[in-house]
């Protein structure tokens, strides 16, 4: 009987123990990440020509080559935004999505509230990539509009446009012509005009005067300004009459734009 009692006691104890542990709630795991103090970032995108907000669909601007032109819409990807500190350290903003899609026809895309917390401190500069680098520019990664409408055909290298500026200019016959001024992966062609190679045209942009300090719980709003006229000058004078209305298959035209792109973006304000 004594043996039976011991067994009963042992079983009861085991049952209580098992029941207790099996009902333990899933408590949140302690955050092992360093408790770094941080602030937040909001990017605002603005687009100007000759320092003034763009009057869209109006052929009222003149580029360095003397072309009279107007802008219908501007669409592009900003990726790999990186914050640099003196001493060479840097931090790339990953955000949820790793990129910003900016579309002048969609006002909500002109504001990018960065999800990542930004560690407090003094930063020297901001850099980013226009478009996607060859690792990230993967076909089929977007399935939903508006990003999916930036698709760059497989035959021309695949992935997505870096930038679209749909524009019109007055040609040599004094008539307004449409131009799909689009940047993306370039191609090389053989003697039969068949694609036989690709050229990655994405490029990095360092924003001048982009030093800032962010303090704890601060939300820093940074306006990035695209100065559209700079796409068409410095170091290359881009002439619409020379390349016509489409450049996706004309590397000689795209490279001019890409080389001019270094000073297209500036900081409007940091506040």
């Amino acid at each position, binding site marked *: 009987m004594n043996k*039976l009692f011991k*067994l*009963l006691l042992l*079983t009861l104890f*085991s*049952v209580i123990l*098992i*029941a207790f542990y*099996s*009902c333990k709630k899933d408590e949140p795991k302690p955050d092992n990440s360093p408790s770094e103090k941080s602030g937040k970032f909001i990017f605002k995108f603005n687009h100007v020509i000759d320092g003034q907000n763009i009057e869209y*669909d109006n052929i009222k601007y003149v580029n360095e080559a003397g072309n009279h032109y107007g802008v*219908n819409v501007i669409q592009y990807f900003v990726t790999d935004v990186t914050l640099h500190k003196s001493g060479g350290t840097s931090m790339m903003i990953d955000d949820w999505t790793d990129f910003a899609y900016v579309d002048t026809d969609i006002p909500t895309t002109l504001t990018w509230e960065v999800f990542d917390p930004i560690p407090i401190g003094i930063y020297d500069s901001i850099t980013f990539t226009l478009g996607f680098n060859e690792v990230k520019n993967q*076909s*089929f990664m*977007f*399935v*939903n*509009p508006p990003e*999916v*409408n930036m*698709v*760059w*055909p*497989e*035959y*021309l290298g*695949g992935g*997505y446009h870096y930038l679209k500026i*749909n*524009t*019109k200019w007055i*040609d040599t*016959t004094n*008539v*307004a*012509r*449409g*131009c*799909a001024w689009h940047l993306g992966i370039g191609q090389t062609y053989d003697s039969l005009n068949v694609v036989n190679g690709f050229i990655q045209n994405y490029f990095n942009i360092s924003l001048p005067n982009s030093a800032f300090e962010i303090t704890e719980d601060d939300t820093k709003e940074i306006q990035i300004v695209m100065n559209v006229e700079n796409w068409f000058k410095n170091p290359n004078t881009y002439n619409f009459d020379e390349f*016509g*209305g*489409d*450049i*996706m*298959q004309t590397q000689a035209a795209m490279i001019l734009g890409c080389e001019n792109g270094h000073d297209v973006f500036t900081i409007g304000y940091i506040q």
Partner: protein
Amino acid sequence: MKNIKYFLILIGLIVFISACKKDEPTVPEDDAPFMATPYVFDIPNHFPTIMNIPEDNPMTVEGVELGRYLYYDERLAGREDEGLYMSCATCHIQEHSFENGVGFGYGLPDSVTGISKHTSHVMLPHINLIWNPGTYGWNGSVALIEDDVVGVITDPAEFNSTYEKVVNTISNIPMYPPMFEKAFGTPEITIDRISKAIAQFVRTLIASDSKAHKVFRGEVNFTDAERRGLILFTTEQGADCFHCHGSEGAPLFTTNLFYNNAKDSFFTGIYEDPHDRYHITGDPMDLGAYKATTLINIEKTGPYMHDGRFQTLDDVIAFYNGKLKWSPYADPLMHKLIPPYENGAELTPFQIADLKAFILTLTDETFLTNPDFAKPVGLP
């Protein structure tokens, strides 16, 4: 003794299992919320994941089935008493990709004048509308399929009826109240429920099985001509269709956006179309702009353009190849519009044949014959 051991182990197991049972709230059967069977979508490869399904009209198996009956039931127009019959399927015919195949749609005649009016523009197919971002129609004026259904009922160029007539007619057909009960929880029949059910069915009309889609999925291969046609379709120095009509990476074969595609030179005064995109947005650059239609099943949906001016695909290709008309409103993407006027892609006859060969690969025969989309068996 051995039995006691087993007994105790059994008790332990029972306690163990029952100890973790969650306290679920018990709902008296009478008060349980109505739940129809959720309709599960299988999103095709590379198709959008964002679907235009309003929160107040979730897709259900019962709702879709009811919608299919209503879509095909020619008593739906509510003018049975006048000997006049019309349903959605009267004009939206499956073999024509749920378009009418003849151009403009003609509504039921006016009861007083006996005159039938026609739609402002040619029909648009009911295809892949679940991915329309809320700009239905040639000018994007309709935000929801449900709204379109409601509009059709009273439109003089369509049912030319009244809500009361429609509701009364459907209510008096014995099979419908139980179907509404299955779909919505009660047998009550309203315009709102009719529109919701039809919209649910229309959202199931997905076409993703054309030869081109199969090639993109790696299931079959293009012929050489089709492959060359795809290259022409997706290159600016070719035909440059893709900027507005998609490609491998944009398999709806439409951006669902609006363009003035250089069909005309004049858009104001006597040339003004009060139903173009401009009359929705007020943006002068939208004068003469219309929806870029999907090219999936385009072979089956002529005549073409908003006014049906082109009878055949050959006519359409000929237009883009050399008959573009200049105007200040032409979209910049119409960059082949180069003075002197009336020009275009300037493809050779061989290239035109290749381009057409590719476009024909966008026909989805499965969609055109899918019995799930067809008239229900037994429906009069």
